[in-house]
Each structure stands twice: as C-alpha cells, then as structure tokens.
C-alpha cells in the first residue's frame, strides 16, 4: 500500500446537540469508519442526509464543521497523522494538499471579491507559484472545465455568473494549487438535472486530466457511479458496504445497497386512458401578481378518475404553479378548469365546500405541512369535523380507520408531528387528504425529501390507496424514476408550457422532442459508462446537424 494517499482508520466523530429546554448531550455522528484513497483514484461516499458522509469528507482536512469533533481513530494523509495535528500544520495542508468543493458554490464564494482573486488565492498564500503562473493555470482550468470566455470570467464577481458555472469555477479553484486530493461535497446536487450532466462531465474530465485523487460525496448513487472508482455506502454514521463501483452497482451484497441500486421496486401497469376525465385543464395561462411574465402558458391536460398524471419538469418549469392554479391559490388569467363535470371557479374563495373537499393536496415537506402544535388526531380529525361534521366517538373511530389505512398504529393519535419520522409525517399528511374523501389528490414532490427506502413505501401506499379508493393523483415531480414507477399519463413541462403530453408508454418512447430528449437523457442511470455514452451520443447528434 505504498501509494495510499489518505488512510482513515476507525474514525469516530462526535458533536454536542442542544435540544431546546433540555441539557446538552453528545451525539455520535460517525462511528468506526475506515476509508482509504489511493493516488489518482476516486472514492465515492454515498448515503442519505445524516449518514455522516460530509462529516467524513471534511475529516480528510481534519476539519469539524460547527462544533463537530473528531474524537477517535487515525487520519493519515501522505503517511502522517493529521487528526491531532496543530493549526500550523493543518493550515499548510489545507488548500494545498487537500482542497474542497462545496455543494453551494454561490454561498462558498466571497461575494465581495472577483473570482480570479479567489481561485488563485491558495496558490499565492502557500507560495506555490507566482501570480502570473497561477492566473495562467486558472485560465487553463477554466477552459478545461468548459467555462465560457475563460480569459475574462475571472474578472467577474460571484453573483455575475450562473450556478452551474460557479460550481465549475469552484472546481477550478480546488484544482489550481495542484492538490493531491480534492473533496467534492455534493457538487451537482443543487443544480437542475440538465445542468448537472455538463458539470459532472467537466468535473470528471478535470479529475482525469489532472490525475488528482478525489473523495466524491453525494446521495445519488447513479451520479457517483459515473465518477468513482470505488464506492462506500454509509448509513447513520456507519459503513454499510465498501467495494469497487462495478461491484456495488452490479452485485451489491447488503440489502440497503440493493434498495439504492434498484431505485424503484414498483411495477405499475398503465390504465385505460379512454375514460371521461375527472380533471380537465384547458388552455390555462397564469402569472403572479405584479409581474408581466406568464408562468403558465396555454396549458391543457386531462386526468381520468382513479389514474395518475405525472407533471415532470425542472425548477422553474411551472409544474408547481399548475398545482396552484388548479387549487385556486393562483387564479389563472385565461382558460378553464373542469372538475367532475363542473367548472371550478378561478378564485379559491368562490369555490364550494364540496369543490374544496374533493381536491386535496400533499406537500413535499411534511414537516411544515402540519401544524407543530396539533396532535395527529387533530390534524386528521379536522377535515372530518369540517367537511362531515363528525365529532366524538364517530370521529375517533374514523381517525383510527385512517391510521390503519396508512399502516400506522392507532397509538399515534395523540402524538405530535415532531415525534414522528419523516415517512410517518408524510403518511399522516396522506391520511389528512384521504379524510376528506377526495376525488383528486395533488402530490407536490411528495417523495423528494425522503430516504429512497421510505419513499418506496410511500409510493406503494399511494398506489394501494388509489386501487382501494379510486382517487386520482396529479403527481408533480422532477424525478423520472418515480414517474416511470407510478404514472399512467405524463406531461413534460418546460418554461411554463407543456412540451410533451400523453400516456406514459408514448411519452417515454421515441421519437422525442428536443427538450424531452435532453431531460430524459440527462437523468443519471445506474450504469457504468452511462455518462460517456450520453456525451458521445450528443456529440454525434450535434455533428449530424
């Protein structure tokens, strides 16, 4: 093991937590994790939020964020122990031997300084090269990373370049001092999927061409599979599985890893589209008050009863705005929305109680979708009271039925939201929607904030409930895998318009329009060499044009 660059052994990381109104206590964030990175290789650290992957990543610089303490084990960098090293030694290695690329480059750049100053700062402060050489190297890196106008982009300030570009500049900043190891901490997570692929490709190329070793941290296994040579799967601060990328992707041995690899273990047969729709959106156009820009342009979609219409798009595509128009929160300026054969009035206030009851909504963040001061019983019971005038024993029995339906114990009736897990919270929100006996439930990114295993459970529950209750779903998401799993019909949205619409089997089959092609081909697939194939394919296409 002569060329081992970073060797972390039995790492233990702790922090002090301060729960309100209680004495502070120590919590273990990472326990007994060992990681090794050889020169020139890329190790992917993968796990959900709270798995400790960023914490481990930063430990390679012997850095604990916000009171996090590296309390045990060894961290050997180029053979010397750095966990217990003094500040002076750490300063000399940070930004020189090891560098860091943060998730949000927009926050990580100093807003008051030009990009070039920040990119070459370490090269100068560590005395690695003269200014002219550092600047030349930075421009080279800008070019290598595919940034526009590489000669001059360094003169700009952080807010003057886009998010995807900023992420590449940050990569250049990390590579400029010729480090041995770069830590990439979710560098593409904050980006849209079509931007992500370019940044990912740029990072991969830069790693390859500079021969640097890297720790690549992400929650997305398909992403890391494109970049990493080896992968470590983490959960709750402990190692689950460690192996080569090829082995993890094709022959995962742990159940958790298998769940991550298989993504959606749900099969769903497309239902017959030739039914009278329960929801019909016709030529809807809408804009926000005080703006002169239509966020929805002439949108028309149909949703048959008991079926699922998925609205797919990137941030800013107008998919959530469509939900607001249907619910009446954003009255459309033009167009009609017909529900169960009657036209819904544009304004929320003008709608009848039945109109309100029959369209329910579930949100992305179950945390803030429930009043923290109300018990589960109150949350689920309120629609029963409000729409059906239930009270006392009758209401209690119905709440218990609903708890059974969402596969939660009856004992939860007196709990508060803060006492529930993420998945349980989302289930309670589903129960609250079901309590109204709706014909349509709008699901806005309901699984995006959840662990994949938990998300799977929620999707299965939604499908079972649809089969049992005949409720239709308008399912808003940016996640193509989820769409594949549960949709009957799909509408692809781009800049406020529906660019492709129809039954799932048709929408997801060629020939594609340009945007859908770009969108679908940009979604990372759990496959080695996928990135190269896509890039190759795109290159051929653009050459053909």
């Amino acid at each position, binding site marked *: 093991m002569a060329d081992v660059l970073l060797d972390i052994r039995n790492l233990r990381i702790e922090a002090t937590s301060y729960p309100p109104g209680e004495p502070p206590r120590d919590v273990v964030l990472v326990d007994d994790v060992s990681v090794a990175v050889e020169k020139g290789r890329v190790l992917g650290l993968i796990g959900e939020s709270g798995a400790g992957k960023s914490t481990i990543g*930063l430990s390679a*610089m012997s*850095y604990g*964020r*916000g009171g996090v303490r590296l309390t045990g084990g060894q961290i050997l960098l180029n053979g010397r122990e750095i966990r217990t090293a003094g500040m002076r030694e*750490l*300063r*000399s*290695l*940070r*930004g*020189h031997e090891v*560098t*860091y690329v*943060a998730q*949000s480059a927009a*926050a*990580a*750049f*100093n*807003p*008051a*300084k030009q990009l070039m100053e920040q990119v070459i*700062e*370490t090269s100068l*402060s*560590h005395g690695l090269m003269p200014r002219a050489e550092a600047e030349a190297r930075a421009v080279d890196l800008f070019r290598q990373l595919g940034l526009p106008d590489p000669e001059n982009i360094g003169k*700009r*300030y952080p*807010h*003057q370049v886009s998010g995807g570009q900023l992420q590449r500049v940050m990569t250049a900043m990390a590579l400029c001092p010729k480090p041995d190891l770069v830590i990439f901490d979710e560098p593409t997570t904050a980006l849209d999927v079509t931007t992500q692929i370019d940044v990912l490709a740029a990072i991969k190329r830069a790693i390859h061409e500079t021969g640097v070793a890297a720790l690549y941290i992400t929650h997305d296994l398909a992403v890391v599979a494109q970049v990493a040579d080896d992968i470590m799967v983490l959960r709750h601060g402990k190692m689950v599985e460690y192996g080569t990328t090829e082995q993890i992707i094709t022959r995962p041995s742990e159940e958790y890893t298998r769940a991550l690899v298989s993504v959606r273990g749900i099969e769903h047969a497309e239902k017959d589209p030739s039914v009278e729709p329960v929801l019909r959106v016709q030529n809807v156009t809408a804009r926000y008050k005080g703006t002169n820009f239509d966020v929805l342009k002439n949108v028309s979609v149909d949703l048959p009863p008991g079926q699922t219409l998925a609205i797919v798009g990137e941030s800013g595509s107008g998919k959530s705005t469509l939900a607001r128009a249907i619910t009446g929160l954003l009255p459309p300026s033009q167009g009609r929305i017909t529900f169960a054969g009657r036209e819904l009035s544009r304004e929320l206030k003008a709608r009848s109680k039945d109109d309100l009851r029959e369209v329910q909504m579930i949100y992305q963040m179950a945390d803030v979708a429930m009043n923290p001061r109300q018990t589960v019983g109150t949350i689920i019971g309120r629609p029963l009271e409000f729409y059906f005038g239930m009270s006392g024993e009758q209401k209690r029995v119905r709440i218990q039925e609903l708890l059974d339906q969402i596969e939660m114990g009856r004992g939860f009736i007196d709990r508060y939201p803060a006492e529930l897990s993420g998945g349980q919270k989302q289930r309670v929100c589903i129960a609250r929607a079901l309590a109204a006996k709706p014909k349509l439930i709008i699901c806005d990114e309901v699984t995006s904030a959840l662990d994949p295993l938990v998300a799977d459970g929620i999707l299965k529950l939604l499908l079972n409930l649809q089969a049992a209750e005949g409720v239709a779903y308008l399912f808003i998401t940016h996640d193509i895998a989820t769409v594949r799993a549960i949709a009957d019909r799909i509408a692809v949205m781009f800049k406020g318009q529906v660019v492709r619409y129809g039954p799932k089997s048709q929408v997801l089959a060629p020939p594609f329009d340009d945007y859908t092609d770009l969108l679908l081909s940009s979604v990372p697939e759990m496959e080695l060499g996928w990135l190269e194939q896509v890039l190759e394919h795109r290159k051929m296409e653009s050459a053909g044009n």
Partner: protein
Amino acid sequence: MVHPILKLVVQRVALGILLLLAASVLIFVGTQILPGDVAQSILGQSATPVSLANLRAELGLNDPPVTRYFNWLSGVLQGDLGTALSNGQDIATAMGRRLGNTLFLAFWAAIIAVPLAIVLGLISVRYRDRWPDKLISGVTLATISVPEFLVGYIAVFFLAVQLQWFPSIASVYDGMTLGERLYAISMPVIVLVLAVLGHMMRMTRAAILNVMQSAYVETAELKGLSQFTIIARHALPNAVAPVVNVVMLNLAYLVVGVVVVEVVFVYPGMGQYLVDHVAKRDVPVVQACGLVFAAVYIGLNLLADVISILANPRLRHPK
C-alpha cells in the same frame, strides 16, 4: 445609462425627504389638533374669554389647520422657526447655539463609543462563549437595563461626588478653551457612551458573527489561510456594511439619549431646551425641536441605508 446604485440612492433620499415631510405633518397635527388648547394652556385656567380670543387671533389659531401647517412649513423652509410663546425670543437664534452644544456632546460621545463598541464586539466574537464574551455581554446587559438618567446619577455619585474626578454639572460658556470644554462635558460623555455602548456592541457582535459563520469564511479556512488573512480579506470587507449600519442606527439612538443626559447635567443643549419648553407648553419651540430631532434621526437612518446600498457588491457590480 444611469448606474442602478445611483438610482437606488436617489430613490432612498427622496423617500427620506418624503418621510421627513410626513413627520412634520405628524408633529404639527400632534401639537395642534389634539384636544388641548394652546391659548388656554398659555394663559391658564383663570384666563378671561376675551383675552383667550385675542391670543387665539394673534397666534393665528382661527385659521384652518391646513393653512396654519403650510404657513409654518414655509417658515421652517426659510429658516424661520417662529418665536417662543414663553419669552418671545426667535427660536432659530436660541436653538442655533444649543444645537451646536448638543452636536459637540454627541460628537465626542460617538468618537469614543464607536471604536470601543467595535473593539469589544470583535473581542466578544474572538472569545465567543468564553469568559471575555460573557463578561462583556453581562456588563452591557446591565447598562442596557438601567435608564440613561440613572446611569447619569450613579456616575455622578461615584465619579463626581465620591472620587471628585469630574464636575457634576456640565456648564459651558463662551471663551472656554477646547480643553476646558471637554473637561466640562466629560461626565455626560461617559454616560452617553455607556448608554449606547451596550446596544452598539451587541449588534456589532451579531453582525460580525453572522459573517464569520458564512460559507465563504469556511471556504477561506479550508484554504488554509491564516486567521489574520481570513479576517482581513474575507470577513472584514463583508462585515463593514452591517457594522456601519449598526453604528448609524445607534447614533440615531444617541440623539435621543442626549435629551435625558442634558437634563441630568444641566447642559445647555437641544434636549434641555425641548424639555423646558414642553413643561412650559411652549408649542412653537416644541414643534421646532421635534422637527430637528426627527430630521437628525431620519437623516442618520437614511445614511445607514445608503451605506448598505453602496457596500453591496451585487449592486456595485451589476450583472
């Protein structure tokens, strides 16, 4: 093409002028339309109806309020603040000297308080949650919890009476040298400094802490830069705007503290002048003083706004 910063600054200044105008209406309305009769209050309960009517006519109280407001405002704009009811003096003349005295006092208080607050704020941040921070925060909490006039008397009791270091009354007169003058106002300056120091230091601490906890300071740390470089090159340029903002807001606060402190030390300034004439129910003087205080207060707040705009890199280097 007008630079967007210029546009914003002009907008903000226009807003400030509008606000001052509205404040003048408020002050006028507050003194003229409330159910108190100026003539009655001047002449007292024993006044005869005839003398009341005469005085009302003399003061122009029979004109409609809008007319009276515009008469007053046009006078103010020409530097004519009217005459005092109680002694018939020209208000602008009487106020001129006093305003000078007040600004002199406020200036020296600011000269001491601002650097002190910033240094203490920096120390608090540097030793966050350790004893220097806790000590500073405890002492400043105490100074915030006691009203200025009490701080004044506590200071008089110990510094002027027990230790006899400073005079307990801040009397100034013509012909004093600067040194004598400074010695005379040393007590009110100490009290004013104590009064604003707490707020200023706490807000400075919060502003710097906010910058120190930002992601770009972490980036600088992960670049292995020295503590000094991090603070000088990454934290300070971004902390200047919020700190200056804090300072301005507290200077505005200082303007109010002056009123009480002048009364405590019998200092011939604006505050003393205002309080005396409130007691005498001398409305024109109260209006004039109120307007001047409001103008200074609004002006300092405006300055704080403008500085924040100028310091914002997003606005300075538009896309």
